[in-house]
């Protein structure tokens, strides 16, 4: 195990996992001196009946200070301020966030406002601006997942001023994250596949990116193992309780990993694709992941090869010659996309030209790729990618990911 010359690692979140983890929340809140939480969620989560399950688990232990389900798919400053007002009006003393990335971000934003009595949230977005403990925050992810229940980042959009506010601080980490199998049971196969590949991309990118460290590596290896083992089965059998819990834990491990080691080209191009074409994040990750590995292969092939054992097991590892292991990892990931495509009846895209919206319309027209390649130049994930990227190379990867053909690695400039 390589010890870097210098590294930092932090995950202060208490993780409570199980088939009845929700029932432990009242005691956990009591430990933090709270008994009146505000529940923040979105309409999708509420419609799936998940909020009811949470409320039932809490019923005798705490007084619910309010349930707000108006979090939009993209976090919104207006909603943050409105929910902060609700928190104050109802004299709440904790926040419970039930949902995916946007709900978590909103909850973190609300927490800043109510803890710092902030009138202008923007003032807290600089480096080092947040250094006082916030109010108790319990995160209950409903996908497996974005990992935002263990990240120290929150992105809040100000739609009026057209700006994105980025908050980074360890104090944003939730106090507790609840991984309960009931919370991901209702995810339909398409969403399960997409969010599962998002989690895999966190684990894999976290493993090869420049800020990797021994602890993030250990989390990545465990995550890769669990996700590869359970994602297809859980997509096929949504009611597999054990599988759902394993995926939730795997996604959490992946979240802890990338939160500490950062991500690279897959997220860089993925963010840009999402921004330009509106493709869901998980699909971008699934499509781009094998390409990100191919792009970085000449820089960190040995590192990528280390993912083979946790992914495929001893038999495959032993019978794959050392020089071929990294490529085998790439082909296994392509196979995963293939399997998920079959299980979801074609909804899980294997490449960008296949991505369609609800009306069957292609979401990534080929002529938009240059715009995505350009937009990627503005995304910070490239800093941690092992190899440098420029516009031409971004386009090269995007074209290959559009067609579904392996990357022509000879075209990557090598320094």
């Amino acid at each position, binding site marked *: *195990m390589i*010890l*870097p*010359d*210098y*590294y*930092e*690692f*932090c*995950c*202060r*979140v*208490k*993780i*409570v*996992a*199980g*088939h*009845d*983890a929700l029932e*432990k929340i009242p005691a956990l809140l009591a*430990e933090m*001196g709270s008994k009146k939480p505000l529940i923040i969620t979105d309409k999708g989560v509420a419609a799936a009946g998940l909020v009811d399950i949470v409320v039932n688990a809490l019923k005798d232990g705490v007084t619910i200070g309010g349930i707000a389900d108006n979090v939009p798919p993209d976090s919104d400053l207006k909603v943050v301020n409105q929910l902060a007002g609700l928190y104050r009006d109802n004299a709440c003393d904790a926040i419970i966030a039930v949902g995916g990335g946007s709900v978590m971000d909103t909850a973190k934003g609300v927490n800043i406002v109510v803890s710092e009595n902030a009138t202008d949230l923007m003032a807290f977005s600089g480096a*080092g601006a947040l*250094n*006082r*403990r916030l109010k108790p925050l319990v995160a209950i992810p409903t996908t497996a997942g974005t990992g935002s229940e263990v990240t120290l980042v929150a992105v809040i959009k100000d739609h009026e001023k057209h700006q994105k506010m980025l908050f980074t*601080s*360890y104090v944003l980490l939730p106090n507790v994250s609840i991984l309960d199998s009931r919370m991901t049971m209702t995810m339909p196969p398409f969403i399960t596949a997409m969010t599962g590949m998002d989690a895999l991309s966190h684990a894999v990118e976290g493993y090869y990116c420049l800020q990797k460290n*021994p*602890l993030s*590596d*250990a*989390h990545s*290896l*465990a995550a890769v193992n*669990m996700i590869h083992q359970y994602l297809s089965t859980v997509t096929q059998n949504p009611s597999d309780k*054990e599988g759902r*819990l*394993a995926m939730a*834990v795997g996604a*959490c*491990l992946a979240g*802890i990993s990338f939160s500490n080691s950062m991500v690279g080209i897959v997220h860089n191009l993925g963010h840009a694709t999402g921004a330009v074409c509106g493709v869901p994040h998980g699909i971008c990750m699934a499509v781009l992941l094998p390409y990100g590995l191919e792009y970085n292969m000449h820089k960190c092939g040995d590192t990528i090869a*280390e993912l083979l*054992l946790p992914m495929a097991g*001893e038999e495959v*590892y*032993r019978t794959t010659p050392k020089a071929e292991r990294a490529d085998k990892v790439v082909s296994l990931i392509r196979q995963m996309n293939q399997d998920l495509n079959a299980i979801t009846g074609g909804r899980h895209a294997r490449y960008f030209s296949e991505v369609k919206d609800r009306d069957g319309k292609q979401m990534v027209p080929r002529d938009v790729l240059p715009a995505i390649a350009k937009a990627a130049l503005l995304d910070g994930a490239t800093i941690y990618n092992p190899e440098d990227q420029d516009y031409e190379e971004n386009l090269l990867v995007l074209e290959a990911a559009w067609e579904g053909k392996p990357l022509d690695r000879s075209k990557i400039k090598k320094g």
Partner: protein
Amino acid sequence: MDLTNGFAFTCPFKTNSGNKALENLPVELAGLNAFKPLIITSRPLAGCRAISTLKNAFGDSGMTLGIFDGVTETADLSVVEQIRDIFVKGQYDSIIALGGGVVVDVAKIVNLAVSQKVADARQLSPATAIRDPLGPFIVIPTAAATGMETSKYAFLQGKSFVSVHLMPDLVILDPRLTRAKDGKAVAEAGFAAFGRILEADIAPDRNPLMHAYAFTALRFLRENLADAVNKRCNKKASLAVANAVAMSGCVISNTDQNVLHRLGQVFQKIVHVHPGMIIGMCLHPFLDDCMKKDSSLIASLLLPLGGDDKYAAMPEAGRAGEALRDIYEFSYEIYRSLKGKIPRTITEAGIQQYLMNDVMDIINQEPDGAYLRTMIDRVGGGSIKA
């Protein structure tokens, strides 16, 4: 890993490890909303060089810091009270513990005293409820660490305080301070960490979160402990061992499986030996017992200890045996290289009868006292008779 019964895991401390780690202190303190730290350390135990290295790390920051370097092995609650008074009068807002063992124990209790604003620290007892997080607390272990520095435990004056809130916010591992001066001390710290992590990682209720820390620490120890013991100029090896020791504090704070740990603690308390000495001795009989109960748990150790290739090449049926062989060879090598400086049996350690009687008194009060007694017998403790 079996997740059916669920699990809970927490690691409240951040880890900063490596070159010039200390120099980040001003920024790290600011991140904890702290600007005037009190350094609690021990001139005899941590050494003047460590203290001056730490002082110089603040060199460019413009900060004011206080240093109390009078902690000794026999520190008690009156020392805690003395420091508490200094802290309050000097209006400090954070605590940095530089050193290992008793230095960190004292610092934890001081933090408890000042955070709860007690009037007199001598009134503190393990019965004191610790419900809220304490003030900013940073631990900087030196080579004299015991493995308890980052844990939720603090021991002072025969009293055992336990709370997750006692754990530090940050542990800083700087190679200038973790370099081993004494092979025996490193080996003891290494064995203590090794044993504690092993028993947690082969427990039936181990969880994937704790396993990530255990996996990393086991690899670090397996790959570096021998070098750290024998080639003390190898800063990287010492740093890796220090990393593992810090991680072991997190692991033992998240498990109830602590036969080896408790044995180590009892001997430390009564006989004043490093817990690693006893844990090293009891490792073999303990693992032999586990092997008989369920070898599949031992088999999984081959991956962190033997590496990917060895693990994959070994058929499933042979992994547990190979893992044990690896552990025995590894520990044997270290004992051999120390040429008897660390005793392998209690007889060899020359522990006097009356002390063993005191040890047995405590052990007999444990719920699994009978089992612990057999463990002591098997490492030569039974052969000491009046």
